């Protein structure tokens, strides 16, 4: 149920600093995105669950996996630049077509002490 661990060696925060660390270099914006569609089985299960209400686990998991992937891409980009932290991480979700959603993660890559 717990979402996958987002990062190993790159520090992520949604603050404008890493508390307790000093920023030594800025690398600018890094971003990662993924567009995902749900498969028919999940759609059917979700529409059945829709009758009685409650959590749609299939969708929760799908979106968590997608967000983790978008984050992983962002982290990869930050690493390629030589950063060891991404600050002010934001997520956004937009539905590009029926049944498909884009998950986007972005932040500022920096190097901290």
């Amino acid at each position, binding site marked *: 149920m717990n979402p996958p661990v987002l990062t190993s060696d790159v520090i992520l*925060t949604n603050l404008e600093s890493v*508390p307790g660390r000093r920023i030594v270099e800025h690398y600018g914006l890094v971003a990662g995105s993924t567009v995902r569609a749900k498969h028919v089985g999940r759609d059917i299960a979700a529409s059945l669950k*829709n009758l009685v*209400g409650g*959590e*749609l686990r299939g969708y929760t998991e799908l979106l968590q996996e997608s967000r983790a992937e978008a984050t992983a891409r962002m982290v990869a980009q930050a690493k390629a630049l030589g950063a060891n932290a991404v600050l002010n991480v934001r997520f956004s*979700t937009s539905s590009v077509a*029926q*049944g498909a959603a884009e998950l986007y993660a972005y932040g500022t890559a920096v190097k901290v002490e």
Partner: protein
Amino acid sequence: MNTGTASPIPDWVVLLLVYGVPLVALVVFGFIGAWLERRHYASIRAREAATANLPATNLRALDDERAVQEAWLVTASVVISIDYFKRFLAGWRKVFGGRVRSYETLLDRARREALLRLKEQCPSADLIANLRFDTSCIANARGRNRQTVAGVEVLASGTAIRFAPAATGGALRAAG
């Protein structure tokens, strides 16, 4: 009564199928949905009491003298939907306008659940800073141009902060 155009199925059977089945479904799914919602609220209240010692704030700046040992991003999300009966009620509400209670409780449950999951992910943290909620509608493709709301997704994200253990022992809690 056997004219050429008469259907072999009696009228009352057709009426029962057309109006009776959806009505029964409304009542049955409404009851199940209400029961599930009560159960969810009971679980939310119990877990909120259990995680009450981990404060979450939407402030960005930390006004705290203690040294930070570790800070990391935490995210948690939930996709939740309402039952058939409540969706039916919400549809009628649109005719008259006003508060749509069925959607109010849906969003309330979703936000509280997402925050709880966030807190449950970082039991070792002392504080969650810059808490954000993102809400998005998950549209379900049913029918050609009819977008029924299948549910809402609430994403809670924040920075979990663990303070360095105080040299004197007993760490001071920040006021407020």
